[in-house]
């Protein structure tokens, strides 16, 4: 199981780490109770600052996905993100769909893209 970080991606590194772990959770590859490697290991393998990874872990904890125990490492506590309402979740989707429309994609093209992304996301999911 890997997480990948792209130095040329416009998202900050900590956000990439958060997103990668979330997608592993969504696909069910990371299960409840699974432990995450220590901050130092992830940071040194990826060649980034310790604080970057610590921030990512804190963000995941804030969303209720992992529990950080000092000295004992971090454990996946839940595969479901916190208590966001459906409307809150829809907002970024609406934004992304608007972009596609503005760039001239047709309805069926957008539908294809959405189902393709969903397929990729749920690959291996249970």
């Amino acid at each position, binding site marked *: *199981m*890997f*997480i*990948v*970080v*792209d*130095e*040329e991606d416009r998202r900050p590194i900590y956000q990439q780490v958060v997103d990668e772990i979330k997608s*592993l959770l969504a696909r069910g590859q*990371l299960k409840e109770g699974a*432990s*995450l*490697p*220590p901050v*130092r*290991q*992830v*940071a*040194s*393998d*990826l*060649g*980034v*600052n*310790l604080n970057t990874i610590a921030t990512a872990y804190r963000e995941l904890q804030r969303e209720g996905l992992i529990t950080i125990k000092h000295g004992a*490492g971090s454990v996946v506590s839940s595969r479901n993100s916190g208590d966001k309402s459906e409307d809150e979740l829809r907002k970024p989707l609406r934004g992304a769909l608007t972009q596609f429309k503005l760039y001239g994609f047709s309805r069926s093209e957008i539908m294809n893209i959405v189902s393709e992304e969903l397929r990729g996301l749920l690959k291996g999911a249970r």
Partner: protein
Amino acid sequence: MKGENLAVLISLGATDLLVLLVLVFMPIMRRERAFFGVRVSREIYEGIGKRILRRYWLCLVATFLAFAAIGFLTSVYRRNFLYAIVSYLLTLLVAFLLYASFAREVRPFREISDTKKFATSLNTRRLADYTHYALEVVIVLLTIAPVFVLIYYYPTIPERVPVHWGFNGMPDRWAHKSFSTVFFLPVLALYMQSWFLVLKYDLVHAKMTLPAQQAEVYLAAKEQLIVASMRMMDWIRGLIAGLLGLVSMFMLLATNESLRHWMPIANFLVWPFVGLLLVVSLYYIYRFMSINNALEAVTGNSNVQRESEAEKWSSGGLFYYNPNDPALIVEKRDGLGFTYNFAGEGIRLRMALLALVPVIVLWAVLDL
């Protein structure tokens, strides 16, 4: 000069030559992937690189002739070891400086890596996963027991004790009894075992750089490297514990009437340990090379580094100093083995441990 002294001079010279040979081939061990520790294009390597290399080799040969050979002859003529030893050390120092200065010359030809996506495995690496507790107990016993045995027998040890043995197990150098002559070997064993343990801990947590492309292949190879390193460390720790434990007992066996008949057996037992140490070291060097070669055959490169990190190596890839890198141990750029990040957290502790070497040597020499 006696024949025996000449033999010592020649064997020291041979060791010097061997180190020099390593420096001769180090720049080209991984060809254009690490030419003087710098990744260059094939054109550079085969064009200007060849010329730089020839000049480097010429300088090394000249250094050897100017220092080592002249020092050796002066020693023989003047019947004094000192000339040879100083000249051998000078040879190595100058050779090292040559390597570093040629590496600086190659630096501008560095090829910029295009890898920007890196991966990390979510499996936690722990020392406990590579620890065999039975072996640890044996190592602790073999290291600690001689101290207690020697403390127990200390009053019975005579005033004049043997401190060096020939190949046949007969003492050939003597000294007066003191804490340093009796306890030097057990203290050395304790010190070495502490270092090995620290090294093993650090190696488990060595940085693993995995390019996102072919991350699985890289991970598998790097894990093999870690496993091989751990096994090598365990073999060496066990063998050193056995060997030093055994040799620590020599003084007691040689000076105690009731134990003397054990001496030939103890002396004979040294050789399997020495032989195994040699075999194990050679086998694992071969193992590390074959793991790297297999990875290189699949991916074209066995060691990928970030651009930001390539800048932080100095002296042609011998030293790594990168305050922005949280890793304490990293893979060496020229392929074989690992090295410390001299800006890493915890490096002071390691350097303090290293600084104990002169302390122990002084303790033995000054006979405190």
